């Protein structure tokens, strides 16, 4: 009888609301979302810790940990979809995108990127691997330094893999480490005869069709190698083939491409890779297709003369194409430029330039005798030399190392840079390092020492940039030392380009700190005085060790830097480490903070953490909407009970209650209900804590932004409909269950609890994230909460301003006691971040809280 009534009722509601499942079903989906989100965040913090550099891990670990995380978030997402009736299809796409990025990094053997061709202006710093070092560096000159480079596009490592796969050559690569010369020759022959996958040919044809009209009639390209690490950490100079003067046709470029790829497997190149400790079968090669400059003259710049004199640069120049100079075919003009404050040509020698290499249209290139009258002329004017030197200095500054640069000038006098790579320096060998170190470091005044916390160790140097306003972030020169009052997550976008960060205030657990560690940027926080001691524009050297051991020297202490470079050479080999650690960038950062902002949209979800945050907010909202709709429906049908109620609380908090059955005492109902009418055991316990005398303080906190308080405790008017429900405080309550989502200002509490007479079923999940004060203060608040919760046996994971806790298996009485304390903690810590100006305060206040003393004053 009751069953048939329910059936009938469901039919009515179903018709009314598009066959929506009932509240209980929705609620089960909601619970699954909560559970999935929690598992996701736990896996996230766990992974962040293990990949942080303090653990030895292998790729199996990373795969396993990520698989667990992905399973959790997928689970959450599928229930979320069900709950919201597929209202946010974009989230699935976002997750798929994140997953493909992560998988790509996990499967180092296989570039999964679909991009086979990338034009230079689209090459961003995260594409370095896909386009190879040579392409990346040249594109960087144009994109970051606005230096003129020829029209060009890259054929990616993904294209390389596709090419090898298409020709069945992948297995052969696996055995390459042991391959002899004959096997290599066989491999090269197979490459030279190789065919191209259809999508490769199509992508290349499209790129050529784009570039051809820009180049004009006699368009020709140089097709050159750009191996993953080439021109980066290791020079590979001259190891691989470059094919010049290739006509702009698909066939011709493919022909040249095969030659370039085959050169990766020359015996000499393979042995060079082995020497460097590379696994030869693993190196992937991208290629660059760069417009040929019909060069009037061209040459090479060493930004450190003769590979050792950093105070001067050497520029060579000869008529015709650069190959003449690069291959040493001709006696070039030579200019020496002193660097100093102002660039100055200090020496000029006009060479014989007997030979020149010229472009023979479609027929490749040719070496010819230079006409006699041309030989005696200097290729460059003083002004042109200085212009080249200026660009070279900027490039050296940008890459933080002496450079070996190829340039060319066309007939109209326009100068192009064709290539730049690290110049191999003849470093003096050190005989008595200990002695020298003492002498050298001793000569430099120490500006700061040992007062602060080292976030990332290392030695580096650069010019101080004192950041007063966030909007000046763009102005920091690459390779500068960022000095600021506070650490800030906003620095993140600048971090990859900085040499060091030093702050007056900060914690080693912040988001910024974790990014600094990811990028190995030497960083010291909490120095107390960096912004007052260091001067804007001052050159300094930072040497950061363990713990609080660091020193900032005035000036550039070459000796220390040299020492660091030797260590860094080893660090760079940890390519796999960097790659795996980098995965966290797609997982951990939280970009969506405030649900009331426009930014809080599915489109803005970039990371797994964003997805979790977004899903929770919208899941709560969906339940509230549904309950409200159902309530209206029921009321109309029966004049019956609505499951949606507003709680009357003696504190300025508006809280909606959705009754899942037993959430209210028997007989209680109506739009507004009192605390006494609450039937949910766990909710009663939490509310008792929140309402405990002295816990809820509104006075005495100088919180920046006076209107924050009003925003803090608002539950939106229910008559308003969906949009306004964003950010509402909600309790979903059953007799033995509660899920509370509380958003006070800029932080967010989630508490999910089952509290019954069966301890096995009982649990508390707790989550806290965000805040309005500085990240330092916010993470102090997290520390305080963690201290308190740890006392009750919570398994806790904390990172920055996120805290995730889990507790289970306790009996009902214990759970209720803990919930009462948690209610107090939620109330008590609500504005606490504004107060926690020191680590001592954390201990003091945590101790007081545990003793039942809720006063803030010192």
């Amino acid at each position, binding site marked *: 009888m009751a069953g048939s009534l329910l059936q009938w009722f469901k039919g009515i509601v179903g018709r009314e609301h598009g066959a929506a499942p009932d509240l209980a079903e929705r609620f089960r989906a909601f619970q699954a979302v909560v559970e999935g989100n929690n598992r996701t965040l736990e896996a996230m913090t766990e992974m962040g810790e*293990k990949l942080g*550099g*303090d*653990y*030895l*891990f*292998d*790729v*199996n*670990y990373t795969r396993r940990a990520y698989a667990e995380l992905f399973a959790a978030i997928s689970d959450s997402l599928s229930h979320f979809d069900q709950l919201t009736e597929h209202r946010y299809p974009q989230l699935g796409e976002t997750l798929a995108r994140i997953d493909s990025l992560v998988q790509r990094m996990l499967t180092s053997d296989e570039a999964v990127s679909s991009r086979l061709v990338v034009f230079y202006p689209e090459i961003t710093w995260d594409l370095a691997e896909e386009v190879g070092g040579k392409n990346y560096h040249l594109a960087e000159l144009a994109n970051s330094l606005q230096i003129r480079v020829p029209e060009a596009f890259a054929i990616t490592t993904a294209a390389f893999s596709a090419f090898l796969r298409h020709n069945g050559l992948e297995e052969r690569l696996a055995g390459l480490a042991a391959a002899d010369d004959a096997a290599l020759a066989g491999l090269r022959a197979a490459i030279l005869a190789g065919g191209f996958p259809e999508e490769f040919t199509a992508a290349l044809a499209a790129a050529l069709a784009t570039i051809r009209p820009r180049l004009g009639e006699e368009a020709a390209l140089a097709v050159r190698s750009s191996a993953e690490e080439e021109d980066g950490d290791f020079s590979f100079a001259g190891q691989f083939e470059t094919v010049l003067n290739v006509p702009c046709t698909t066939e011709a470029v493919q022909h040249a491409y095969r030659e370039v790829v085959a050169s990766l497997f020359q015996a000499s190149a393979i042995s060079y890779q082995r020497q460097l400790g590379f*696994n030869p079968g693993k190196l992937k090669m991208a290629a660059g297709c760069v417009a040929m400059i019909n060069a009037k003259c061209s040459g090479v710049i060493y930004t450190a003369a003769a590979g050792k004199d950093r105070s001067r640069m050497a520029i060579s120049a000869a008529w015709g194409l650069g190959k003449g100079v690069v291959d040493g075919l001709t006696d070039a003009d030579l200019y020496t430029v002193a660097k100093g404050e102002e660039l100055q040509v200090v020496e000029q020698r006009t060479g014989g330039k007997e030979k020149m290499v010229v472009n023979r249209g479609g027929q490749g290139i040719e070496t010819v005798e230079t006409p006699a009258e041309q030989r005696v002329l200097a290729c460059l004017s003083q002004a042109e030399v200085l212009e080249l030197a200026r660009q070279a200095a900027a490039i050296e500054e940008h890459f933080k190392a002496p450079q070996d640069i190829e340039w060319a000038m066309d007939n109209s006098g326009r100068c192009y840079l064709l290539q730049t790579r690290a110049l191999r320096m003849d470093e003096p060998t050190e005989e008595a390092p200990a002695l020298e170190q003492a002498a050298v470091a001793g000569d430099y005044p120490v500006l700061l020492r040992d007062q602060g916390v080292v976030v990332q160790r290392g030695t580096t140097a650069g010019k101080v940039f004192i950041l007063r306003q966030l909007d000046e972030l763009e102005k920091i020169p690459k390779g500068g030392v960022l000095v600021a009052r506070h650490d800030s997550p906003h620095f993140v976008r600048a971090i990859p380009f900085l040499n060091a960060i030093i702050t007056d205030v900060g914690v080693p657990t912040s988001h910024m700190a974790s990014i600094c560690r990811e990028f190995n940027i030497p960083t010291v926080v909490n120095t107390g005085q960096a912004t007052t001691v260091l001067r804007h524009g001052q050159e300094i050297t930072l040497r950061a060790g363990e713990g609080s051991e660091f020193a900032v020297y005035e000036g550039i202490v070459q000796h220390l830097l040299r020492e660091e470079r030797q260590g860094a050479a*080893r*660090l760079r*080999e*940890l390519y*796999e*480490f960097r790659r*795996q650690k980098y995965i966290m960038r797609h997982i951990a950062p939280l970009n969506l903070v405030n649900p009331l902002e426009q930014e809080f949209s599915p489109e803005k979800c970039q990371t797994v953490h964003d997805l979790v945050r977004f899903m929770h907010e919208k899941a709560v909202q969906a339940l509230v909407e549904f309950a409200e709709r159902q309530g209206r429906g029921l009321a109309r049908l029966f004049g019956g009970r609505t499951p949606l109620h507003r709680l009357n609380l003696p504190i300025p908090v508006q809280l909606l209650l959705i009754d899942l059955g037993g959430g209210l005492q028997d007989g209680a109902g109506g739009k507004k209900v009192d605390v006494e009418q609450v039937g949910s055991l766990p909710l009663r316990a939490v509310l008792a804590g929140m309402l405990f005398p002295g816990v809820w303080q509104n006075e005495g906190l100088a919180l920046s932004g006076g209107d924050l308080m009003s925003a803090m405790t608002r539950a939106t008017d229910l008559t308003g409909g969906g949009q306004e429900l964003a950010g509402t405080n909600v309790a979903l309550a059953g007799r033995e269950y509660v899920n509370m989502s509380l958003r006070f200002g800029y932080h967010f509490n989630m508490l999910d609890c089952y509290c019954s007479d069966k301890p096995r079923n009982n649990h508390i999940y707790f989550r806290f994230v965000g805040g309005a004060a500085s990240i330092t203060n916010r993470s102090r608040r997290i520390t305080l909460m963690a201290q308190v919760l740890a006392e009750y046996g919570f398994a806790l994971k904390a990172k920055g301003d996120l805290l995730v806790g889990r507790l289970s298996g306790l009996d009902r009485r214990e759970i209720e006691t803990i919930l009462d304390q948690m209610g107090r903690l939620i109330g008590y810590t609500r504005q606490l971040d504004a107060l926690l100006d020191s680590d001592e305060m954390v201990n003091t206040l945590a101790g007081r809280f545990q003793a039942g003393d809720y006063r803030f004053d010192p």
Partner: protein
Amino acid sequence: MAKHGIMVIDDEKIVGDMAKLSLEQDGYEVETFLNGESALERLKTKRFDVVVTDLKMKGVDGLEVLRTVKKLYPTTVVIMITAFANLDVAIEALRDDVHDFFPKPVKIKELKASIKRALGTAAK
């Protein structure tokens, strides 16, 4: 005093690389090997103070490395690491005189402490 020599064997390069980098910072001399075979080859000519080896490897595995080390250099300390904490194997390994046994991921600090203990330099 001569530096202590440490051999690290793991079929994944990243493990050896990270171990080498961290242990060299503490003044050890570290050699890394990607498989048991090459490590045994090296052991013919060189004694190490500590051998840190992965348990599960294709071909010559960690237990075989352990037995060979103990035969050639009874005083060399062996520390075993593995992807899964398998108790049976751990017990067998310990019976065979493994100094320590770590499941991966291994906290580098703990590995360092274990090495220090093994070398008897912990109390300095």
